[in-house]
């Protein structure tokens, strides 16, 4: 997106340009404030003692403490929760890529619109559509309260997402390239592995990250199918509300711990992220 041409420059009077700039930067500042304030407030509160966190009027300047973070890890098996979330997300994304990449390629190359539509319907329907039967089946199979059960269910969210993003990328790869390789005696599977996949790296990165975020942030599947053994990070943070005396310092520290990896990841790969989000939408 960075290589795209910039918006044309506006030629107006000098006073008009000044007023224009004032309006522009005013709006920008207001928007940044609105969208960043809750995250900033989360981090700020997590560095306060509990008394400071509950102070009114709210404290803006104080001596920061990391006690809340120490407590979060000392009083809860928070590290285990991080491991749980990671196992679930990595396995759901891994399976989704393994099965989703060839499926998306076939759907893009052979214009399998009916298959594509089926995947889209699964992506669009609310997650609770799948949860009553999964709940019943999982109880019968003993999959309730197991990490593999939760990871399996997360595939419902991640696989359609991966296919949806990758179909868009695969459609953009010129056919001529593949036809040339076919004439040179390359097999179709070989073309997919040696030509198509390497060319689709930005798409695969985007699908991997968006899939990871979707699983990491997912709440309702673990809420219904999980239990004590499968506490993922959103469940762990959610349990902070159910305590009688709300501990804002601990709550925000936990919220920061769960959000930070995702925010850091997004900052690193922000270019791919935007690409993955827009490919399906703009092509329609």
């Amino acid at each position, binding site marked *: 997106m960075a290589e795209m041409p*910039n918006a044309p420059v506006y030629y107006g009077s000098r006073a008009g340009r000044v007023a224009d700039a004032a309006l522009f930067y005013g709006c920008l500042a207001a928007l940044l404030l609105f969208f960043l304030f809750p995250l900033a407030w989360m981090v700020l509160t997590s560095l306060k003692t509990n008394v400071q966190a509950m102070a009114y009027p709210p404290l803006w300047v104080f001596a920061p403490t990391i006690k809340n973070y120490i407590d979060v890890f000392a009083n809860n098996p928070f590290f285990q929760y991080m491991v749980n979330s990671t196992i679930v997300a990595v396995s759901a994304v891994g399976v989704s890529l393994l099965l989703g990449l060839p*499926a998306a390629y076939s759907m893009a190359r052979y214009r399998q619109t009916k298959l594509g539509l089926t995947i889209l319907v699964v992506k669009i329907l609310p997650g609770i559509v799948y949860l009553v039967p999964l709940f019943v089946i999982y109880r019968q199979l003993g999959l309730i309260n197991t990490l593999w059960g939760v990871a399996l269910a997360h595939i419902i969210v991640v696989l359609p997402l991966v296919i949806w993003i990758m179909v868009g990328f695969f459609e953009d790869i010129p056919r001529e390239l593949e036809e040339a390789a076919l004439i040179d005696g390359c097999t179709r599977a070989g073309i997919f592995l040696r030509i198509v996949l390497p060319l689709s790296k930005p798409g695969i990165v985007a699908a991997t990250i968006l899939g990871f975020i979707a699983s990491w942030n997912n709440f309702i599947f673990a809420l219904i199918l999980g239990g004590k053994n499968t506490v993922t990070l959103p469940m762990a943070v959610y349990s902070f509300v159910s305590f009688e005396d709300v501990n804002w310092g601990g709550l925000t520290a936990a919220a920061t711990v769960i959000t930070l990896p995702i925010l850091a990841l997004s900052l690193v790969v922000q270019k791919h992220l935007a690409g993955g989000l827009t490919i399906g*939408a703009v092509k329609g």
Partner: protein
Amino acid sequence: MTRWLEAIDRHVPVVFPLPAILLVGSLALYPIAYTLVISTRNYDLGLSNYSVAGLANYAKVLSSSQFWSAFLRTFLFTGLSVVVSTTLGMVMAVILNRDFRGARWARTAFLLPMVATPVATSLVWMMMFNPTLGVLNYLLQLVGLPPSLWVADPQLVIASIVLVDVWHSSPFAMIVLLAGLRSLPREPIESAMIDGATRLQIFRLITLPMLKPVLVVVLIFRTIDALKAFDIIWVITAGGPGTSSETLYVYAYNQAFKYLDLGYGSAVIVIFAAIVAGVTAAWVKAREREWT
């Protein structure tokens, strides 16, 4: 071995999608069918009964006033959230489409609310909404406005949750609309400028009509998303106070998983899913009509 590879090669359109289709079939399509079946049963885990009910559950749902309240509430929430987040996303896209120092950083910063874990950020919003100790009432007071009960006020709870959803979802509208703006041809806009059109005229008469296809896509995605909003509502209010923020998703969840009435709950879920699918189909139809 080579024979296997040859077989794969001859049947790529079958072999490549088959594993994914089998998995989606067993994890998603089969459960959809199963939900349909359960919705025609008396199946309450609390009573541990199981018998054929025909369409009785559906009749019960459609004559429940609580269901219809949730239905209207869902559309109120969706309408507000979609309109506000798309408008705000458009403003952000127009701003970021300009060239200024730090534009890339601003764009990245705007993306953060979208990727942040909703359960975590919802808890932060809940803390900020606190009527006596929350920072939002403090800020209101700073600018001379009276304090608000926010999500504790049955009259304001939907608006307050819309605020959180807008915070979460405007960045998505922004990123798609920005990509749309960048893909527009420059000539019409440049010639309008030379002709002395104001920024607002250019936007209203040239940019917006050209951007319409992308705008409709954003509206479709945002509508689907808002209809399905669950995490933020469940974490912040769980449908309360009373039932004043109980949307269809929350109502369905409560019936199936709180009261464990799987039969009735499944009927609600089927109706809810049909609404999501129907609204999406209507949007897509409207978009196609616009095209041809």
